């Protein structure tokens, strides 16, 4: 079968060259060929396995293609971005590379490094099957520039069931700060730290603040704050900040010496009760800590449970890439319904396409997929997903670092107003 396809392809190439048809047109007829270099920061366990699932899909649809996996490890993509920046400056463009939607992607669009994918979204009918808010987070001036592999949820409130039982805490369907505050008092009486935190790296604390803020002010206001269209000194924002300050006093006392996995481990051990962490913690709890969903741990959301704070990874086509047809084939395979399911099953996230069957995914993922399709979506600023310059996200981290030391909500507002309006 494969040999036959190759034969057809080579016959097509020969006849095409005789007829003077360009190589790209042939590629679209019999699958793309040639080398496709894919640049990412996915090198570890489940991530590289998930990436390989996309590669397998690309190769199946395009037997003549050769994928060059250029992955750079470390620093949640910071190291990879450094290498990519050097390569782009030198004009050595990979066919496709990983980028966060939002500020990161905006940087590439500003540099005219990423190709406009609007026509692909139209011709393949993707616009109809992906959440509009997510497509918008990758669009500039009405043009969309990348496709998402899958989406993680950042605003999940994990809790240790045994710890809550011990303190006699029951959670309502919609968890407010007042509920958490009452729970904290009961937990502290039992000498259990109410909050699990590991903010040696500041993003975990920044994420706690972000999710508290989104829970307090709602999705629309949060987006306005980030875009500089609303003031950070607003009373509701200040309330959220003071909630955050209070929550820090609930945290395990070694929080500044732990990373996020340390906080998840502490939650699993029951020395603390609640942890605000993205749903990548799910795998950590189940696989590494050996805890059972619904038995040992449960999850909720601060504020409206229909609000879904998104963290996704997307891929673009390099505007100056040599093999654009190959890059397009790779992007198409990311959006292949089968690949979407296979990828997200391995990565622990939720498919970008809302029209695929999630029956084979885990219980948690099925619930999250439902919320993604029907809920209110907000792009995470902390994870660089908001449609603003990357420096706003950095300013949020920096302001949180200072806030931890001085608890000064006014100074925080001043710093963020300056950054968001710049």
């Amino acid at each position, binding site marked *: 079968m494969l040999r036959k396809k190759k034969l057809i392809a080579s016959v097509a190439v020969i006849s095409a060259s005789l007829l003077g048809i360009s190589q790209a047109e042939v590629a679209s007829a019999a699958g793309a060929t040639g080398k496709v270099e894919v640049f990412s920061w996915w090198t570890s366990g489940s991530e590289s396995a998930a990436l390989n699932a996309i590669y397998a899909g690309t190769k199946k649809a395009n037997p003549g293609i050769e994928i060059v996996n250029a992955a750079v490890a470390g620093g949640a993509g910071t190291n990879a971005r450094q290498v990519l920046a*050097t390569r782009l400056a030198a004009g050595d463009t990979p066919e496709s590379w990983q980028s966060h939607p939002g500020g990161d992607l905006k940087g590439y669009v500003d540099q005219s490094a990423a190709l406009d994918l609007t026509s692909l979204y139209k011709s393949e009918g993707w616009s109809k099957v992906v959440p509009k808010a997510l497509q918008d987070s990758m669009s500039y001036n009405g043009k969309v520039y990348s496709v998402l592999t899958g989406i993680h949820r950042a605003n999940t409130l994990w809790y240790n069931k045994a710890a809550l039982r011990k303190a006699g805490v029951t959670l309502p369907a919609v968890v407010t700060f007042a509920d958490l505050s009452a729970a904290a008092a009961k937990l502290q009486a039992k000498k259990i730290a109410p909050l699990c935190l590991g903010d040696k790296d500041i993003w975990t604390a920044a994420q706690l603040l972000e999710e508290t803020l989104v829970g307090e002010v709602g999705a629309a206001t949060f987006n306005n704050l980030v875009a500089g269209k609303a003031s950070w000194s607003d009373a509701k924002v200040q309330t959220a900040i003071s909630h955050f300050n209070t929550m820090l006093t609930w945290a395990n006392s070694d929080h500044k010496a732990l990373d996020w996995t340390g906080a998840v481990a502490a939650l699993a051990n029951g020395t603390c009760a609640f942890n605000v962490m993205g749903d990548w913690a799910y795998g950590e709890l189940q696989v590494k800590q050996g805890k059972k969903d619904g038995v040992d741990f449960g999850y909720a959301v601060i504020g409206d449970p229909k609000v879904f704070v998104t963290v996704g990874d997307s891929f673009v086509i390099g505007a100056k890439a040599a093999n654009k047809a190959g890059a397009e084939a790779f992007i198409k395979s990311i959006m292949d319904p089968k690949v979407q399911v296979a990828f997200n099953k391995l990565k622990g996230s939720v498919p970008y396409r809302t029209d695929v069957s999630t029956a084979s995914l885990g219980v948690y993922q099925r619930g999250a997929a439902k919320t993604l399709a029907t809920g209110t979506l907000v792009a995470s600023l902390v994870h660089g997903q908001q449609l603003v310059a990357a420096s706003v996200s950095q*300013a949020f981290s920096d302001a949180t*670092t200072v806030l931890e030391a001085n608890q000064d909500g006014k100074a925080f507002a001043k710093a963020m107003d300056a950054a968001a309006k710049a």
Partner: protein
Amino acid sequence: MSTKSAGISRRKLRVNPAAVALAPSFILVFIFVYVFIAYTIRISLSKSWMPGLQNFDLPTPWYGTYHDLFTNFRFQADLRNTVVFTVLFLILAVVAGLFLAIAVSNMAKSKVFFRNLFLMPYAVSFIVTGVIWRWIFNPVSGVNLLLKYSGISSLYEKVFGSPLKPQWMTSPEVFGNMNSLLSNVIPGGDSLQAQMGVPIALLPVIFAAAWQLCGFAMAMFLAGLASIPHELREAAAIDRASGFRYYWSIAIPSLIPMAVTATVILTSTSLKIFDLIYAMSGSGIGFSTDMPGIYVYESMYKALRYPLGAAASVVMLVLVSAVVLPYLVRFNKGTEE
């Protein structure tokens, strides 16, 4: 090293074929060091340079990026941390290195064993050191358990009323406040936002760095001690000088060149420090353990503000040059005489 050979080649340029042989490496060094330094300085003066959009337009005023940098809370804290870290780390590492060197050189047995033992941490990567010392200084597990079970903590409680539980890197405190003093001394000192003092959280990091590098200082001092003529020690013994007197009046003064070299090398290490901090404490509460190196990295590759990152790295270059250049000039003079 390169300036030394530059001095030689300048004198013998006309006759020496060595100059021809050395030319390629000079050209490469010129391009990959000096041209790139110039390029970085140029980027730091641009308004919005990006790798794919190389726009070199100046901001208004032209030093705008540097103004942003020096009025930034975080960078002010970084400069404070660099100074505090460098001074305390140097004192600790050089003094500990000297003591180790004297101790090892006086050992009757197992000299080689202990020399290697104390040198061992130097061979470990900063990342490993950072992770290990992060665990050791964890306020819940780590060294505080030692204080608890040895009874030191409860003894402290009997004397001072509260148990001894240092917070180590998790402390948000900054000891001392020099802001008002500095605002009178340096220009623009009134725009100081960060509290100028000694961040308590920095102390465990300084300790870890000194632990790692005191072996290096020891090795240099050991070499220095070995080069002191044996007759001097014998003469001192005949004059009935005590061991302390011998070290204080003879050995240590003759070790000063070693101390200067060790200080310069350790200072340049400390001004550039990145990995140890990154692995051990991160930026810390209120940037109490942040460093210019981390700032450069984050402004460039997280915030994508290349001019700002370039400006911060130029400041780092100036700081390192201020330490290394006088040393090289002195060294150069020494070899020419």
